[in-house]
């Protein structure tokens, strides 16, 4: 019943829209206001009706609807575009685009949206903006018609395709056309061509589109689609191995970041630093603090937050590390197992301090825009944040290697850790070098925390999750050898990711641990052990 009425109303509006601009405007207003009374279940019809008008004024209305910024005035059901300002709403007239002043929020009710509505908005916006002069908007439009194909839009897509010059948009439109064509009532020959187009484009998206089409395809088309599917699946399977390597590298880089500071404090200095994880956590909290300040005072600098946080995290955790070294650890040199106890105590204190100061719950650390999203490389999906983390881990590694091998500071560090008494008699201020080395290890852990805050919880428990893995990596790689840590981290990461699809996440991890235990039997001093007389004495 309601539906018939609805169609009638729409038809009426369309009819009345013909003569004169004013009446068209009024018709549009009625359509917009109808949104205010619509239910979630029939909202898509209203949206389709709005889209049918083809009016450019509809675009901001639909956009606002999708973002949940469309409000209806309770008193007269007038619908407005809004912006929040305190407890008030700044109103914009949806049809004229003019400002309509401010009004208290309580007088309005928000037009609710759900995923279904958002999908409808996406479809409608897609076909409305296909011809937009702005390239990016066209790109977005092409993506949305591809993601939610609608047979009615086929004509619009073809029109757009005819006019489109930009290669990237064209490629998308081609695919969109093929996708849409498959669900339209065009002849089979054209559909067969469309299948070929999709097969060419490949990827998971095409797989999904073709499988959908397979469900409703008729007998003549079926073999084509099945062949195309088989072809795509084959290439996908090849890429899957590559994808696993990538995931492994990415997990490895996380392990490397977590472990590399430990490779200094534990590997080089021999301190069983159980508070290492807490250093990582402090680094993550520094990032949180930086972002909090930026968000409140300099929102424009948000994309720089990580760059600002890095040196700060290094300084903060480095300072905490130095305090730890001067306050506790320096009394424990030569008693490595006892450093375990003391640093465990320190880790409890640090955790509880953070819990008291920042609260026990997760804190929000956002991704800067350059770390969000993903891109496709062949058949690989590569997320930006993982890519940056891999690069960052390698950069930290290289910098550390340089510092240790090529600078006087590094030389002194190595001298002190190899033979304290000799170094001190050579005039090196060993206590100072000890403190700096420990601070360096801690500082690097803090920088790792900045990176890890991008992919994990920022909570007082953050460090606990990494401490065991870190020790495994260092021990597996060979204590005292930075290269060992690098190779260890990446090989454990890749091993883990190749086991995971077969054994599942839990069993995979158990297997990795068992393999580490067995490996240590074979090479009791890790992958890159120093051989010879000196180490055995």
């Amino acid at each position: 019943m309601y539906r018939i009425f609805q169609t009638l109303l729409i038809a009426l509006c369309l009819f009345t829209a013909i003569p004169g601009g004013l009446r068209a405007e009024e018709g549009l207003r009625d359509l917009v206001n109808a949104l205010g009374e619509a239910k979630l279940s029939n909202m898509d019809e209203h949206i389709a009706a709005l889209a049918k008008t083809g009016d450019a004024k509809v675009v901001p209305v639909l956009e606002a609807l999708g973002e949940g910024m469309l409000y209806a005035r309770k008193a007269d059901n007038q619908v407005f575009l809004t912006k929040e300002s305190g407890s008030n709403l700044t109103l914009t007239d949806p049809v004229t685009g003019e400002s309509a002043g401010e009004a208290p929020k309580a007088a309005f009710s928000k037009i609710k949206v759900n995923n279904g509505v958002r999908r409808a908005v996406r479809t409608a916006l897609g076909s409305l903006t296909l011809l937009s002069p702005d390239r990016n908007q066209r790109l977005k439009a092409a993506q949305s018609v591809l993601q939610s194909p609608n047979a009615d839009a086929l004509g619009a897509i073809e029109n757009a395709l005819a006019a489109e010059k930009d290669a990237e948009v064209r490629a998308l439109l081609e695919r969109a056309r093929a996708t849409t064509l498959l669900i339209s009532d065009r002849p089979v020959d054209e559909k067969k061509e469309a299948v070929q187009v999709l097969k060419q484009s490949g990827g998971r998206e095409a797989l999904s589109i073709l499988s959908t089409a397979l469900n409703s395809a008729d007998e003549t088309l079926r073999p084509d689609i099945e062949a195309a599917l088989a072809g795509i699946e084959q290439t996908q399977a090849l890429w899957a191995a590559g994808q696993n390597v990538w995931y492994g590298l990415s997990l490895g880089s996380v392990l490397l970041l977590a472990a590399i500071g430990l490779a200094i404090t534990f590997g080089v200095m021999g301190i069983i630093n159980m508070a290492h994880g807490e250093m990582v956590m402090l680094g993550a909290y520094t990032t949180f603090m930086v972002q909090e300040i930026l968000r409140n005072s300099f929102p424009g600098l948000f994309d720089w937050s990580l760059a600002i946080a890095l040196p700060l995290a290094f300084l903060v955790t480095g300072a905490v590390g130095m305090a730890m070294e001067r306050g506790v650890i320096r009394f424990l040199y030569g008693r490595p197992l006892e450093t375990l106890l003391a640093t465990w105590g320190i880790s409890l204190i640090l955790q509880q301090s953070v819990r008291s100061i920042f609260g026990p719950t997760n804190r929000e650390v956002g991704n800067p825009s350059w770390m969000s999203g993903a891109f496709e490389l062949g058949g690989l999906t590569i997320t930006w944040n993982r890519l940056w983390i891999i690069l960052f881990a390698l950069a930290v590694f290289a910098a550390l290697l340089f510092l240790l091998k090529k600078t006087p500071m590094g030389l002194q560090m190595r001298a002190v850790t190899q033979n304290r008494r000799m170094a001190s008699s050579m005039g090196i201020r060993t206590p100072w070098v000890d403190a700096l080395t420990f601070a360096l290890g801690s500082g690097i852990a803090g920088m790792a925390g900045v990176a890890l805050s991008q992919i994990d919880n920022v909570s007082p428990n953050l460090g606990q999750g990494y401490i065991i893995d870190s020790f495994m990596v260092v021990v597996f790689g060979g204590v005292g050898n930075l290269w060992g840590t690098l190779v260890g981290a990446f090989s454990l990461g890749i091993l883990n990711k190749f086991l995971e699809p077969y054994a599942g996440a839990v069993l995979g991890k158990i297997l990795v641990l068992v393999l580490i235990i067995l490996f240590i039997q074979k090479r009791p001093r890790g992958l890159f052990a120093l051989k010879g007389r000196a180490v055995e004495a």
Partner: protein
Amino acid sequence: MITSFLIRSLDRTIVIAVAILLALAVLVPALNLLTSADHPLHVPTYLVSLFGKYLTYALLALALDLVWGFCGILSLGHAAFFALGGYAMGMYLMRQIGARGSYGNPLLPDFMVFLNWKELPWFWYGFDMFWFAALMVIVVPGLIAFVFGWFAFRSRVNGVYLSIITQAMTYALLLAFFRNDMGFGGNNGLTDFKDILGFNIQADGTRGALFAASALALAASLVITSGIVRSKFGKVLVALRDAESRTRFLGYRVEHMKLFAFTVSAMMAGVAGALYVPQVGIINPGEFEPGNSIEVVIWTAVGGRGTLVGPIIGAILVNGGKSIFTAAFPEFWLFALGGLFVLVTLFLPKGVVGTALQYVSRRRAYREARNHKDAGLPAAEPLAAE
């Protein structure tokens, strides 16, 4: 042979400690059961279980001390043996529930019923018999320790490396026991026990008996450990702790020595776990957490490693402190605990008992030196020098 072994084990300290434990085994349950609630000497049931728990922790710490204090193997996985013993006991207790579970299934524990298991996994067979479970309490941790140690010690994995792989072992076990598919109840573990050997597990009498059993087990283990430590074997352990390759060149199979100590220690830990479970009423994979094993190390260090009563006192002190602090300063007790570990490592490197012994022996040496007027011997400094 055995008698001489036992006699040798009983020096003054051990005799006193054993006497105290035996007295406790009788007194605490008696004061709980025979006095009325408002009697000044009444020990509430709550404390009986609590002290019972401390005693099992003490036994665990003693087990660790045998390998760490006397043999130099810092195991960061001893809680795993404790948990394995606990699971063996827990499985017996689960089987005792029988048809009294929620679903009334006479064979399958509740968690298997609602996850749709159709039959009992093979490794649950036999646990309906106490003797079998009791055997497993010792055999399972012992066997795992034996296999693990056989590989590790043969390959001469030492020091920090050994510590880390023991940690890997307990972590792997933690993950494995978390898996519901393993058939040990996953994260929830085993719980809801009803009775042990036919006695209601919640009855005051049973609790008293369990307390007494814990005290007796601790006393027995103390005697055994002391026997081991004071035998020539014990001297070899200390020798290999301090100079492993010298010991090898003297012709001792160091790996056998370590393996024996490690296995015995794991068995003791298993017994501790088995006594722990009925007193706290639950065993779950959380017991395998690497942090727990580190805590055991800390109890031992606080009490004084390389002494026999040290770990016992350490375990009771730290856990007692934990009990009091978690109630008195729930928000801040971690500061106290963390601070304690730091301070003990810094200022009492030999632990409470070790430091006390050092003090006593220094006083004695000083007195002797004064009595003999024999200033030529540097007798006053022996322990400080180390």
